[in-house]
């Protein structure tokens, strides 16, 4: 069920509408039933996979609560990891690894025909696996108590607003909120609905419009020149941002209406002044997950400068693999790891010559945006060969006269939508929103709601595709 579909609108009205009329003690059950239905609407069979891994995690955590022996605790944690990562590996990475192995063996003159699995990727598996792992790890670390109510743990995993593409929640943040007795609050519900509207605008008006140009270029990479790839890549940078952050906005907004806060996922990432800053603003729930469950256990920044960089590099390598079973994603992770390493070296060995000024800040923002854009080539390209070709074209064959413009209207509508997005983000980033607009908010708010709704009807793309992050 896509968030930008009427199916979801109907589901939202049926689930959230009567939510506040449901007695407190039945609300968890109500949300659980709705969430299971939401997941099964896509493919009923894969709910069994979630039930299986959640049941194992439930019992593992309960045992961890009663076990003191470090060895036994480690074995229990390993059982949870094998269960969760095993399913993830089987469905997402098995064919990729087998294919890579056979390619390697072939190149060494050892023919090998691996057995491939004919399975589809259960939607949301990368997201709920990380949530399950975070739960058992927190219980293992004794930073969160084992959950005694199975329904509550299951609801933590399948809670519908964030089930398919995050934000990646933590047990300590989400589970206690299921017990909170929330009433209908005007301001909260209004804010939640406004977030949903903003998310729909970003998805329908910007992301799906830019996708038309991006797909036309990237799916026919052999026929285009550098200038076209630059435009398509900049468009893809905003397409993926609007697509993914739209999903997060709708998820957070939906949950806010119910009275449950989800973790923040984006903070105007393209205003970042460095790669490090970018990762503090982009997919925040994933970055903090890697920080807490990979970077810090590896030693974080406690074992010297070089170990810290090694740990950062490992995190980005794993992050690349998490995004997709393809070498382009692995290289995408490495690319970011390398640039973060360069940034750390720069900060350590090269003294700051220019004091911070607005001009410097904007130059840093532009530079960071350019570096991030170049990484999106790897993320979007259909193959490594395509990515190589695109980089070659960008750096050696940049010809504005050969810029591909099949239908100007897609570009104009997309750029117009981007103008609205960037203006809103600039106002927020600069603080003008808080200092100037907030006191005068009511008429502005109503005008904004009306304007966004009319723009969706007027220039939105109603035959657009799935959210990009659903594939992960």
């Amino acid at each position, binding site marked *: 069920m896509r968030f930008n*579909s*009427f199916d979801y609108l109907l589901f939202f009205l049926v689930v959230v509408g009567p939510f*506040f009329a449901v007695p407190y003690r039945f609300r968890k059950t109500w949300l659980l039933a709705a969430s299971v239905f939401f997941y099964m609407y896509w493919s009923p069979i894969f709910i069994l996979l979630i039930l299986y891994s959640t049941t194992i995690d439930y019992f593992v955590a309960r045992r961890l609560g009663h076990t003191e022996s470090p060895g036994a605790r480690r074995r229990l944690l390993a059982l949870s990891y094998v269960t969760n990562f095993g399913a993830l590996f089987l469905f997402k990475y098995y064919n990729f690894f087998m294919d890579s192995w056979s390619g390697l063996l072939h190149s060494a003159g050892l023919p090998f025909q691996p057995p491939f699995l004919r399975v589809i990727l259960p939607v949301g598996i990368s997201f709920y696996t990380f949530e399950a792992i975070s739960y058992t790890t927190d219980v293992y670390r004794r930073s969160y108590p084992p959950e005694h109510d199975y329904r509550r743990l299951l609801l933590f995993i399948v809670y519908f607003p964030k089930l398919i593409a995050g934000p990646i929640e933590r047990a300590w943040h989400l589970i206690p909120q299921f017990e909170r007795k929330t009433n*209908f609050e*005007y301001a909260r*519900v*209004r804010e939640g609905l406004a977030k949903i509207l903003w998310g729909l605008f970003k998805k329908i008006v910007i992301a799906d419009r830019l996708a038309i140009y991006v797909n036309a270029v990237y*799916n*026919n990479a052999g*026929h285009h020149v550098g200038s076209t790839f630059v435009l398509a890549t900049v468009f893809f940078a905003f397409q993926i941002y609007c697509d993914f952050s739209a999903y997060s906005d709708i998820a957070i907004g939906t949950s806010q209406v119910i009275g449950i806060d989800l973790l923040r996922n984006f903070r105007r990432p393209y205003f970042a002044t460095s790669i490090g800053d970018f990762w503090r603003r982009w997919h925040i729930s994933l970055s903090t997950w890697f920080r807490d469950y990979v970077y810090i256990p590896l030693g974080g920044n406690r074992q010297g400068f070089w170990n810290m960089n090694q740990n950062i590099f490992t995190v980005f390598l794993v992050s690349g693999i998490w995004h997709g079973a393809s070498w382009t994603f692995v290289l995408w992770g490495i690319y970011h790891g390398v640039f973060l390493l360069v940034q750390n070296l720069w900060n350590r060995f090269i003294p700051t010559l220019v004091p911070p000024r607005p001009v410097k800040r904007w130059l840093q923002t532009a530079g960071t945006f350019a570096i991030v854009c170049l990484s999106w080539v790897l993320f979007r390209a259909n193959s490594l060969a395509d990515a190589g070709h695109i980089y070659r074209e960008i750096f050696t064959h940049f010809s504005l006269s050969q810029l591909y413009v099949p239908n*100007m*209207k897609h570009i*104009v*509508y997309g750029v117009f939508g981007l103008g609205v997005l960037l203006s809103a983000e600039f106002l927020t980033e600069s603080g003008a929103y808080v200092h100037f607009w907030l006191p005068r908010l009511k008429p502005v708010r*109503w005008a904004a*709601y*009306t304007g966004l*709704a*009319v723009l969706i*009807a*007027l*220039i*939105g*793309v*109603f*035959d657009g595709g799935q959210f990009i992050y659903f594939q992960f």
Partner: protein
Amino acid sequence: MRRFAVSLAILVVILWGADRVVGTGMDALFRTSQSEEDGDTFRRAIAYRAPIIVCGSSRAQDHYEVDSLETWLGAGAYNLGRGGSSGPLYEYGAAGIVLRHYVPRLWIMEVDSEIDTTPEKLDRLSCFLPYVDEEPAAAEVVGLRSRYEPIRLLSKTYRYNSLVLSLLAPRLGKGVHHRNGFIALSGALVPGVVAQEPAADSNPGAMLEQPAEDSLKMRYLRKTVSALQSRGVVVVAVRSPHYLDSPQAMKKDRREEEHLSHLFRGLGVSYLDFSPLKQPEFGPARLYRDSWHLNVEGATLFTHALADSLDNMRIALRP
């Protein structure tokens, strides 16, 4: 809760008002715009009352020089070709609109091998959105886009979705100049550097297999033919030329020609094939803009050949 309900009600009223204002403005723009493809094409075609109608995809739009057809056949012609609209659903909507206002004599249906296979691109049916209130055929095909289309149509603005720029462009002195729907293409294909459109299939075996029939397309193809023929319109299916650059493409072309002639024989429709295999004058690359589209020189040559064939069929184009 009460405050929320009141606010929501006020917002709905404001939204409804804004939607009506924008929608009405767009409607006025639509009816008066000179934009051929995104403008009020169907009403313009109806006003022209041409005895000959050409319908189909961009291949129809770019290949059938209606001026030349008019001259050679001595009867008015209008080109309802539209980029990406290569399917019976579009034909049905277009035929339904035209037939409700007048009965043409000849309906030329530009076809390709996908006329009865490969699901039609439903997003292209959005060209009928501005007509849904008045034209039952338009409403019927628009309804096929999504089961939630009636909800979307509660918005008047939605009927003109993505049209604002194309409707404004001619007023700003920009836009493509058409002549009764025909657009001439410039440029010529360089042999050996063929931009495939659609993308070439990477599996050569699959290229030669007959794709499965699309039941929806077949149903609407039958409905279109029957609606036209029952009103006395002569329907002619035409496959205009496309560039053949390999023995495999020629083999595929032969198979498609057999399939289409069998299909239209079954439907009781005359079928004309202008494949370079049957008409070698359409072989040279210089006649093509890309492998699927003739340029202006190719379009002139093709229209002439088509007019000759139609002339030989002795269709009564005048009352």
